[in-house]
């Protein structure tokens, strides 16, 4: 009987912890959004965060998009050739990349690179009292540290995804033309005939939301880290894992909202 009660107590405690964490995250997100709107603004910090999230993530996002487009063309050809539907490959590649793969893969890569870096930096600042020091120097840490990163995430991700879209489509085009023997002109015409503005815009909307999620989870986990190097390590892992899961879950919700008529 006691063992059963212990199990129930453990489950109850875990549920309460999870709910507490969700509440904490909601308050943090609300405070962060309020900090974005409320002055003072820190353009230098926004610029620095844009470099960190956008510019320095460009190589990894570009390579991911390029190879994904290439693989997608190759895989589609293998499958579609069984049904004599090779002509659909161009549309499949461009729609998959712009609607889904561009934003999601860029989100996962940026989460692993920039989200982890944010959590590590803020976590180190937390455990070395630098965040407390900001408060004693008439500076609100949420406005100085968190708001610029949230803004940068929202701006940088759509820019990265625009580039990822171009490179992903280009990867598919190169494989179709050089390896699979497609006529380049026909392939490009097929690609853009079925592409609508909505397809691209929906991907960019997703990217902006994912950028917010990456910055939010990086800052949230870093901001509340404790316990020295181990705590910072745990915060970094947690930032990447939670942002990745949230990106995939929110992707489903956004797809439902944006594409269900």
């Amino acid at each position, binding site marked *: 009987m006691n063992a059963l009660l212990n199990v129930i107590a453990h489950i109850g405690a875990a549920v309460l912890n999870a709910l507490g964490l969700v509440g904490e995250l909601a308050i943090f997100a609300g405070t962060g959004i309020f900090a974005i709107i409320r002055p003072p603004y820190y353009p230098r910090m926004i610029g*620095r965060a844009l470099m960190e999230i956008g510019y320095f993530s460009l190589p990894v996002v570009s390579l991911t998009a390029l190879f994904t487009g290439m693989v997608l063309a190759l895989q589609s050809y293998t499958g579609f050739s069984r049904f004599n539907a090779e002509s659909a490959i161009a549309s499949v590649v461009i729609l998959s990349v712009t609607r889904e793969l561009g934003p999601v893969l860029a989100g996962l890569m940026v989460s692993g690179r920039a989200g982890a870096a944010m959590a590590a*930096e803020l976590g*180190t*600042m937390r455990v*070395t*009292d*630098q965040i*407390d*020091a900001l*408060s*004693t*120097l*008439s*500076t609100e840490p949420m406005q100085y540290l968190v708001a610029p990163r949230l803004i940068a995430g929202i701006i940088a991700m759509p820019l990265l995804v625009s580039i990822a879209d171009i490179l992903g489509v280009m990867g598919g085009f190169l494989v179709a033309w050089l390896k699979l023997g497609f006529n380049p002109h026909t392939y490009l015409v097929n690609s853009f005939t079925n592409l609508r503005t909505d397809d691209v815009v929906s991907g960019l909307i997703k990217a902006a939301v994912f950028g917010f999620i990456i910055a939010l989870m990086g800052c949230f986990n870093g901001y509340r880290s404790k316990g020295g190097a181990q705590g910072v390590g745990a915060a970094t892992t947690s930032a990447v894992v939670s942002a990745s899961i949230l990106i995939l879950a929110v992707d489903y919700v956004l797809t439902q909202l944006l594409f269900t008529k």
Partner: protein
Amino acid sequence: MSLPKIRVRNLKKYFGAKKVLDGVDLDVATGTSLVVIGGSGSGKSVLIKSILGLVTPDSGVIEIDGVDVLKAPRAQARALREQIGMLFQNGALFDSLPVWENVAFGLLAEKKIARRFARAKAIEVLAQVGLADNVADLSPSELSGGMQKRVALARAIASEPAIMFFDEPTTGLDPIMGAVIDELIVDCVKRLGSTSIAITHDMASAVRIGDTAAMLYDGKITWTGPAPELLTTSNLLVDQFTHGRSEGPIKMALRR
């Protein structure tokens, strides 16, 4: 009797079931320096972080200039706390900024002065703590521990605060550098006419920088008196602590 600059009454703080502050009472007269001693984990840092507003106490009164900062409107409490300059235990310098920007950070945030004036002011303050202008553009990671402490002190005094807090100012320094930092602290506090609270384990430092001293033990202030009496008092708790005896009323848990 004049109003104390800082007055703390019945301050309590628990972290879960752990009692950290259990009814702390403290007065710090204007223009004087109080040193708080106590063992590791006795709540010294929590005490000053509560006054700074970095930790929210469970109950009690914290008055600065006669105003209860726990009950005052947010803007007023913030304005009162902006009088406080803080030297953190490990310096807490911002790694991403050069030395001069660390020193001028508060000036740039509070007074919105132009960056070139802020830099000139930072170099002036660095000179006050014995640092040459060639360190201004270095990163904090390029400095020795003693130099980092000096930069952190420069940052704390840059906006000429009316109140200064020092959290273990000599920790991690050799005895000579510790004495140098203490001299700089005494000099800065006297020159600015500030009221200060320092927390320390270092008895030589406590006597050098304090006018008065208090011992925090078991969540309460158990002794107060002139700082030089720390070394001569008959109070058993203070005597054991200052002389570093393992035997006495303070029981330390030993891990076996």
